């Protein structure tokens, strides 16, 4: 579904992604871990077609939507309008399918997105991405700045969509515990390179990964 080969992305002279190769199969839930500045968001933006690759190939086998880092809503517009604009590509302007999925959004429909809480904003960003009826979803920092129960709720929705609709998910996270709970496979990105990849179970047992991302051995 997502197939990245030898991807190089640079900003001027600085190289943000250095020969990254990564695949996410159809219906798979894959995590991408890494510290700040590793190039995770650059990869997310490149997958969404917002940054051109310097070399290498990115092929996407279907409709892909991005939930960008920091929500990135339209703060001056209402929730309903934010959702409607999410359907810009797909032509779907009626948000009711998303209201069925996330009923809380129907209650917030008339509110301005800028005044919502972080969790509510993340839910709007989630709903807005779903408006494009994606087959693959790239989620950049789902848990950042959110309370654990809010994160768990959103993660449950992702898992549900994956199970029922076969939604492909690339979860870009700093919170490895959440990633390992949700995904089977993971990649670790550091300084623009993929340093480790494998099954989450193996990675969680890897002492280097455990000390870097789980704050010590997994319990």
């Amino acid at each position, binding site marked *: 579904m997502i197939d990245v080969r030898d991807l190089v992305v640079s900003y001027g002279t600085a190289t943000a992604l250095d020969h990254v190769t990564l695949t996410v199969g159809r219906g798979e839930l894959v995590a991408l871990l890494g510290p700040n500045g590793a190039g995770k968001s650059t990869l997310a933006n490149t997958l*969404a077609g*917002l940054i051109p690759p310097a070399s290498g190939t990115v092929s996407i086998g279907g409709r892909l939507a*991005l939930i*960008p880092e920091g929500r*990135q809503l*339209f*703060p001056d*517009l209402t929730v309903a309008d934010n959702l409607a604009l999410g359907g*810009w590509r797909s032509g779907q302007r009626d948000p009711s399918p998303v209201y069925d999925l996330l009923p809380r959004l129907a209650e917030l429909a008339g509110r301005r997105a800028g005044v919502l809480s972080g969790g509510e904003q993340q839910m709007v960003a989630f709903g807005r991405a779903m408006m*494009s009826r994606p087959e693959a979803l790239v989620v950049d920092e789902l848990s950042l700045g959110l309370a654990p129960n809010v994160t768990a709720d959103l993660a449950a929705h992702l898992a549900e969509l994956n199970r029922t609709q076969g939604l492909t998910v690339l979860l870009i996270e700093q919170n490895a515990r959440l990633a390992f709970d949700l995904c089977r496979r993971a990649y670790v990105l550091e300084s623009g390179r993929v340093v480790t990849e494998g099954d989450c179970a193996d990675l969680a047992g890897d002492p280097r990964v455990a000390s870097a991302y789980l704050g010590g051995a997994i319990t």
Partner: protein
Amino acid sequence: MSAFLTYLLNGLAVGCAIALIASGLVVIHRVTGVVNFAQGTFAVVAGLCTSSLLGMGLPHGLSEVAAALVAALAGLLTGLAAIGRRGTTALSALIITLGVGVLAYAVEIMLWGDQPRSAPGLAGSVIVAGARIQTQHLLVIGVTAATFVLLALFFGRTYLGKALTACASNPYAARVVGIDIRLMGLLAFALGGLLGGLAGVLVTPLRPISFDTDVTLIVNGFAAAVFGALTRPVITLAGALLLGVAETMAAGYGYGSHQLEIALGLMIVVMIVQAGRRSAITQEST
């Protein structure tokens, strides 16, 4: 009293024309971040076109609409020069629109000469509460009011209008959902051209227009737009009406020779006060 009312209504008409120019500036600036120096040019182009089209025997209405559409096309071309090339900064774009304004001088002089031209508008006048007001003034006020209502509906109610607002609100997010922000920027320039053209069409019957009238129009329009920090249409409208009334009153009560200084001085003061407030906010937030 009736003199006061006459000045007030005339001033409102002048303010409405300024408001149309200013609203074009605001639309373009909101969506693209560019201050369009050629905004006055659109009005001049439309005004000169109207006088020619009417002179060629085209009927009223058709001539004015065609002239405004020519201005919209001029807006689109200006946009192509200003934001068509990737990586043009907002300040470079301002200098480019300055260049477009000067280029328009060359074209306008070639097509219409360098003498002011006028166009017939609505003839006659009506008495409103004891004050005589030209029908054309009423037309200006009416068309401006309708335009602002339509603009509000367009930006607040239509999908395309919301997409334009989205570009202004968060350009990155607009790209995330797949909106082509450069295309939206060009649309904003065309809309700005249309609004400027509308101003030109309405004003030409009131005061003759020549190729270099654009400087007066743009500084007045910018002064009004500055009231609304170049982003808020309603405050811009209020600022434009205030400016129009103040200038007309100044002229009416014998200070006419100083009306430009009053308007420009006011604009500078507003900008400096706003700059002071902005820097206070940034200092607090850091």
